[in-house]
């Protein structure tokens, strides 16, 4: 497509399928997919070894990132226990898990992954939260032939550049560029008059990506909007006061931030005391991404509270989507806390693997080779607690409809949650580059395929 034209914003947002409300799975095709927790109906074909299936799970067990990352491990364990209760994979192989603390640093994580495979003899590598780590780990997994399903580490960079033709590496959560774009759509939808925007982002790939794609989308949705202040605290910062003051000094209409985990908790508390929330609107990509109980009741209402455009445990709510209700109940029963999107991602990852293994077994019998499992994972689609998820064969990336919401204090929970009536959902295909779109360095030099796609195809909105 050539020069993007201009269209009316409402039409535009409509065309993008942005819907607000709590009514259900907008766009999520309730098409028949295997259901997550359905027990393996018929017995496995052929001879299955009963040696344990060893998985390595790497996530943040320490540091401020742990409040976001540790739930990944809990989701993984829950799924493993459920599967083992049914006798294990293909009814035979019990899932064993060894863990590693992602907080050790990227260099150490690379070393640890090699150790897990070469000494720990793992069959599956999973977890990984930080976008700083997945691009370093993906190539290692490929070269050592480790079947890998990242829970997160969702930067586009992994499958755009670091591992452009993935074989062994998959990723379950939504692609990162969707985060910034979702926040932008939420902003344009809710506060169309925003013009002056201040940014505060963690100084690494996630923050940079979130800033870039938000701005790209906003330029088209809210022409004339400008960045009036930028601040890049390093990941793990505890003192945001100077950054907050800097943002306020530009008196913007909106603060957009991708600060996450314990860092966000520290930041919103400090922002409260500096009266930031009274001075401007606030849009985030990951505010409620942490383990839900980590956000206090003191969190202001009406903040656009992203969950990595993946999942928040109250949505799809009630009985509209039994899968979620059941998952949340089981998770709460096991851990006495509510899941976050990492929990759901890690949980689903194991069940997708299970499904792929069973399908491969049906075809050939016996324990399937990694190659057979991989070919089943490619293109696999299924219903999960968060809705319908589909793994695109070309880039091994899991896609599900993007969601975000607004913070609200409900009596039902001892922490701030989503306003059940103001959940924004966007069909994922409308905010991500289609399959086969040129990757960076191949025909364009944008940082991501998504960025190039937006620049080339999105019109400018008016009104």
């Amino acid at each position, binding site marked *: 497509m050539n020069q993007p034209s201009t269209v009316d914003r409402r039409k535009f947002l409509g065309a993008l399928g942005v819907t607000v409300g709590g009514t259900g799975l907008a766009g999520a095709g309730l098409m028949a997919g295997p259901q997550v927790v359905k027990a393996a109906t018929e017995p496995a074909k052929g001879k299955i070894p009963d040696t344990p299936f060893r998985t390595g799970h790497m996530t943040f*067990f*320490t*540091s*401020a990132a*742990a*409040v976001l990352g540790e739930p990944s491990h809990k989701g993984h364990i829950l799924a493993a226990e459920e599967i083992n209760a049914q006798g294990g994979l293909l009814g035979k192989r019990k899932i064993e898990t060894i863990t590693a*603390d992602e*907080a050790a640093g990227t260099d150490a994580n690379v070393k640890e992954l090699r150790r897990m495979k070469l000494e720990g003899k793992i069959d599956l590598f999973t977890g990984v939260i930080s976008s700083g780590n997945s691009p370093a780990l993906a190539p290692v997994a490929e070269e050592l032939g480790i079947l890998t399903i990242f829970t997160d580490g969702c930067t586009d960079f992994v499958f755009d550049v670091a591992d452009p033709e993935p074989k062994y590496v998959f990723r379950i959560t939504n692609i990162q560029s969707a985060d910034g774009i979702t926040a932008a759509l939420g902003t344009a939808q809710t506060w169309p008059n925003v013009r002056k925007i201040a940014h505060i982002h963690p100084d690494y790939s996630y923050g940079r990506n979130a800033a870039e794609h938000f701005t790209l989308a906003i330029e088209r949705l809210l022409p004339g909007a400008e960045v009036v202040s*930028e*601040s*890049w605290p390093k990941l*793990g910062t*505890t*003192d945001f*006061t*100077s*950054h907050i*003051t*800097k943002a*306020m*000094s530009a008196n913007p209409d909106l603060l957009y931030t991708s600060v996450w985990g*314990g860092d966000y*908790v*520290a930041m919103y*508390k*400090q922002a409260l*005391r*500096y*009266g930031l929330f009274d*001075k401007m609107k606030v849009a985030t990509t990951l505010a409620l991404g942490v383990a839900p109980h980590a956000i206090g009741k003191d969190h202001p209402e009406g903040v656009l509270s992203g969950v990595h455009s993946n999942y928040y445990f109250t949505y799809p709510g009630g009985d509209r989507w039994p899968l979620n209700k059941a998952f949340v109940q089981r998770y709460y029963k096991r851990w006495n806390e509510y899941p976050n999107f990492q929990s759901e991602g890690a949980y689903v990852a194991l069940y997708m693997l299970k499904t792929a293994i069973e399908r491969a077994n049906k075809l050939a019998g016996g324990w399937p080779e990694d190659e057979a499992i991989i070919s089943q994972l490619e293109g696999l689609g299924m219903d999960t607690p968060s809705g319908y998820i589909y793994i695109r064969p070309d880039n091994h990336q899991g896609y599900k409809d993007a969601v975000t919401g607004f913070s609200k204090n409900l009596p039902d929970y001892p922490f701030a949650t989503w306003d059940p009536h103001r959940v924004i959902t966007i069909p994922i295909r409308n905010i991500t580059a289609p399959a086969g779109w040129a990757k960076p360095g191949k025909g364009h030099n944008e940082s991501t395929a998504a960025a190039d796609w937006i620049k080339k195809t999105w019109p400018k909105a008016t009104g």
Partner: protein
Amino acid sequence: MSILIIQILNSLFYASVLFLIAAGLSLIFGVMRIVNMAHGTFYAVGAFVTAWLVGRAVALGVPTVWTFLLLPVGAGAVALLGVAIEPLLRPFYRRAEEYQLLVTFGLLLILEDVIRLLWGGLPLSADPVMDLLPSVRIGGLIYPGYNLVVIGIGVVAAIGLWAVIYLTKFGVILRATSQDRRMASALGLNVALVYVSAFAIGCFMAGLGGAIIVPTQTAVLGMGIDALILAFVVVVIGGLGSLQGALVGALIVSFVRTAGIQFFPEIELAVLYLIAALVLLVKPTGLFGTA
């Protein structure tokens, strides 16, 4: 305008905490001639202990007003830790500097993990304390009253320490010992005792720094390592072993840092280290150091 005031207050807030840490480091060096690499971690311990105490107190239903009293308790705990650790260092006072650096570096590694062992890897917060005080209006903006208290504590600590060192008999003894250990013991001073108390005071300062900052932020692993390096910059600029130096150094570092975040974020840290290096070159003993 009010923004400017707030940024200045931010800097003063940061300076008072940094001063507490650096002054302790400087005092210990001044008296014992030891550069304590674990000093930043004492600051972290102060933060964790305090956050933990406050957490327990709130859980036990203690009225939050009283949690204020837990700040000095947290600092005191660190002082006790210092008293317990100082004997460990004694064998090294006469040893080459590299050994002193290394043993305290080892201490740093140990304490970092002891913290993790005791309180786990998750951040601890103590914000009930902070919410005790209302915010104050500054122009159209508000500023946490608690932060003003912290600034106040910094000022009081500076004056107090100065008074102890320059007005009391104990101060005379401290200075005498720092001048010449042998002479001091010849004069019948109990050097061992002087050392313990100096080390304890140094630790108390660091602990207090951690105690007063934790309500405004959270206690996280590694906070000590970052703090140490900044404290180093402070004492290098001000002069190892000099109290005024620590004060001026802390102010310089804090204001440069704030300005850095506002105006030159890319080189915010680099500038600090360069200032330190520059001072070290022009005046190795720092702005206020004496040989």
